[in-house]
């Protein structure tokens, strides 16, 4: 990072902190560190990002205020009921966190309740004054750093967002070109994988950046709906490109340039379209409009292919059509944003139904972990006599458990211990050794500025945000700056003791009530993935006239959600597996396994989609038994892998699949030979090939998964370990 950017960011945070403290002290507000804490937590590099986080913090606090007052007023004399309802409310906030990218709102709405409830003291007489003060000081913190960010070296969040979108669009164009070549010659697979990883990286956090840009820039705010469609369109295009690439193994056997004479023109058109999108994003008018493409096969060449090759060709064409449609929509959206076209962009349909996500099992597991931590902390508070810094103990336990349960469940709680203790030592030294020598705000402001600047300067990288937040939070909490200043070594020592205690609670809830050991979670997710895949495979069986009940539709949606989302979760947990669990195998093996699970998920989704198309009665009648036994074979293998991952045997799967393909090729040949034109129309033929291709896709993906799975030492992964 450019040192001057690093310097400016640290300078602005330090200045905002001094301003926040200066105003809070001059107003003689109690607990001025609350304003400092807001600056510490919300001060980010861009104006829009900081404002966004600040607004989420203020809104969350505003929700927590009436909740706290209601709880205090409802259970003034009954601590058990108070704790029960407070813990349920915090668990609700934790649950809500997992369903939105604006999770910071729910964190603040959750952890502010114990802070507000405990900060007013045991009598509750000052409760109203305390919660209002918290609201005031949180707002003061937001105003202080907003002013500093706007007036001193402002960093435009809108430009940063647009730059990111441009980069993503350019990388997607490059990836399309690379995949286009890969579809025919199969060279440079590693280069394509690296490019695909770059696209995923560029797409991460785009929605948050858009949120920040909307707050920062009126122009972005005005076109925010179109920008949302644009980011959604880019995500869908990435997904479509990945799905396209999963079929290359099968299409590489085809002579694509001759089979599809317009393939080159199609590639050139999509490339031109993506180039024009890039031009428009850079503010230049497009030089060419999209030209409709309809990739066609050469009938004679197609008829020479085997039935499975034809099926692969049909799937390939379907992917191209999807890419064509998505890029056209993206072009229209970007033209709308930049004012280069009529504002007639259609909204992209939502692909994620809300209910299955709401019933996600891992979401409930995270809530159980957080709920258990809260209760362990509350029980410790009641039953351990003279628990040090009890308020800090509860507040740190609640806020850390919310973060760990939802945002980063894969990290070990003990990893927070060392940075936390270093932060306590740094802030404690300032409080005990330096602060007693200060006599006025001039000296104090210099100290605040220097301490915050050092922390901000040292922890400047985006991935160091946790270290920066912990450092700044410990500084403002331990410095305990107030008009009636007190110096207490005991406070420093108590907070230093509280941290290991909280970490201990988090370590306990890593195992109880639900295990969050990476090995256990990885195996649990894998088991659920294959069970859901088996359920979806079962759901496509031939049942003419069957109308699914509401419950059946819900179960189907939940399993479809599992298949779509679990590979992403496996990708998060894979790197967290300890080396001992992998038996010295390179971590790339797990990554390859996860990638193959992702490809399998795409293929199962394709199968579901292909099954939606109507099939000719004649073909169903003739091929039903063969297709059923194929489906049952896949389903049985899914279930056996779910029970024991080592059941995925590559050689056996490959041999069986080859045998099935050979047998079916003959059966399809015989069936089509015996069919008249009235039995099977052209559309019926297309649909049959689509289904055949989808079945083969699932089987090939399962074989590829088995190859990856055979490289993993499963018994070792399952071993009991500390």
């Amino acid at each position, binding site marked *: 990072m450019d040192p001057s950017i690093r310097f400016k960011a640290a300078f602005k945070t330090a200045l905002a902190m001094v301003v926040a403290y200066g105003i809070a002290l001059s107003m003689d507000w109690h607990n001025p560190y609350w304003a400092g804490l807001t600056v510490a937590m919300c001060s980010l590099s861009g104006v829009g990002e900081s404002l966004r986080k600040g607004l989420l913090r203020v809104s969350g606090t505003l929700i927590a205020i009436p909740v706290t007052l209601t709880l205090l007023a409802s259970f003034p004399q009954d601590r058990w009921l108070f704790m029960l309802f407070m813990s349920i409310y915090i668990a609700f906030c934790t649950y809500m966190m997992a369903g939105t990218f604006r999770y910071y709102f729910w964190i603040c709405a959750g952890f502010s309740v114990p802070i507000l409830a405990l900060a007013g003291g045991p009598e509750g007489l000052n409760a109203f004054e305390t919660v209002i003060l918290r609201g005031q000081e949180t707002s003061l913190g937001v105003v202080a750093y907003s002013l500093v960010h706007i007036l001193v070296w402002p960093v435009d969040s809108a430009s940063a967002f647009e730059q990111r979108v441009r980069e993503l669009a350019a990388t997607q164009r490059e990836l399309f070109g690379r995949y286009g070549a890969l579809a025919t010659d199969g060279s440079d697979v590693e280069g394509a994988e690296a490019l695909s990883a770059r696209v995923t990286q560029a797409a991460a956090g785009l929605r948050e950046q858009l949120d920040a840009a909307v707050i920062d820039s009126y122009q972005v705010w005005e076109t925010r709906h179109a920008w949302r469609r644009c980011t959604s369109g880019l995500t869908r295009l990435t997904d479509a490109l990945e799905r396209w690439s999963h079929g290359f193994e099968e299409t590489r056997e085809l002579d694509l340039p001759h089979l599809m004479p317009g393939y080159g023109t199609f590639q050139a058109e999509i490339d031109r379209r993506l180039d024009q999108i890039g031009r428009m994003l850079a503010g230049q008018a497009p030089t060419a409009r999209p030209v409709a493409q309809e990739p066609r096969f050469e009938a004679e060449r197609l008829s020479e292919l085997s039935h499975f090759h034809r099926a692969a060709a049909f799937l390939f064409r379907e992917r191209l059509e999807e890419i064509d449609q998505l890029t056209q929509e993206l072009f229209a959206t970007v033209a709308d944003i930049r004012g280069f076209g009529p504002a007639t962009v259609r909204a992209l349909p939502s692909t994620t139904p809300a209910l299955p996500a709401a019933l996600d099992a891992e979401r409930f597991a995270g809530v159980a972990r957080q709920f258990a931590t809260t209760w362990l902390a509350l029980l410790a508070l009641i039953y351990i006599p003279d628990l040090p810094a009890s308020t800090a103990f509860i507040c740190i336990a609640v806020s850390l458990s919310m973060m760990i349960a939802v945002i980063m469940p894969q990290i070990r709680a003990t990893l927070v211990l060392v940075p936390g203790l270093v932060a306590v030592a740094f802030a404690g030294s300032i409080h005990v050794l330096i602060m007693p020598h200060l006599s006025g705000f001039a000296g104090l402001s210099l100290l605040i500025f220097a301490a915050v600047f050092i922390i901000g300067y040292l922890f400047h990288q985006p991935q160091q945000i946790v270290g920066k937040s912990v450092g700044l939070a410990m500084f403002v909490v331990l410095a305990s700056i107030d008009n009636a200043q007190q110096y207490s070594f005991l406070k420093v020592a108590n907070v230093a003791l509280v941290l290991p205690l909280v970490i201990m609670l988090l370590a306990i809830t890593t195992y109880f009530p639900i295990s969050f050991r990476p090995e256990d979670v990885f195996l649990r997710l894998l088991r659920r993935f294959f069970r859901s895949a088996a359920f979806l495979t079962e759901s496509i069986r031939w049942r003419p006239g069957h109308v699914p009940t509401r419950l059946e539709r819900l179960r189907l949606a939940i399993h479809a959600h599992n298949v779509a989302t679990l590979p992403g979760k496996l990708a998060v947990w894979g790197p967290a597996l300890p080396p001992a669990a992998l038996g010295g195998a390179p971590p790339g093996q797990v990554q390859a396994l996860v990638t193959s699970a992702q490809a399998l998920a795409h293929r199962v989704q394709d199968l579901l989609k292909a099954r939606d198309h109507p099939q000719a009665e004649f073909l169903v009648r003739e091929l039903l038994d063969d297709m059923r036994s194929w489906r049952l074979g896949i389903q049985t293998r899914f279930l056996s892998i779910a029970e024991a991952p080592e059941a995925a045997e590559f050689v056996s799967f490959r041999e069986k699949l080859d045998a099935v393909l050979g047998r079916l090729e003959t059966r399809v040949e015989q069936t089509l030979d015996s069919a008249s034109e009235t039995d099977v129309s052209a559309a019926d033929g297309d649909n049959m090939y689509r289904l055949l291709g989808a079945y083969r896709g699932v089987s090939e993906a399962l074989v590829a998964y088995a190859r990856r799975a055979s490289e993993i030492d499963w018994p070792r992964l399952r*071993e*009991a*370990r*500390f």
Partner: protein
Amino acid sequence: MHLIPSEVDLGGVFLPPLLIAGLLGVVLASLTALLLNRFRLSRFFAYPPLVFLALAVIYTVAVGSFVVPA
């Protein structure tokens, strides 16, 4: 060896002996767990987290009885 419990004086800061014994107990239990993991002996335990807890308690009692009387 004086086995009468007394605070540990660290530069004028008095720490309760049980705290020191507890910290040492956890450190020793962690070292033991590390070694058991290293030599793949932890697979013989049904539930290692409970074993860790038991080890921490045993070490704390041992340290509190013989090293830092608590």
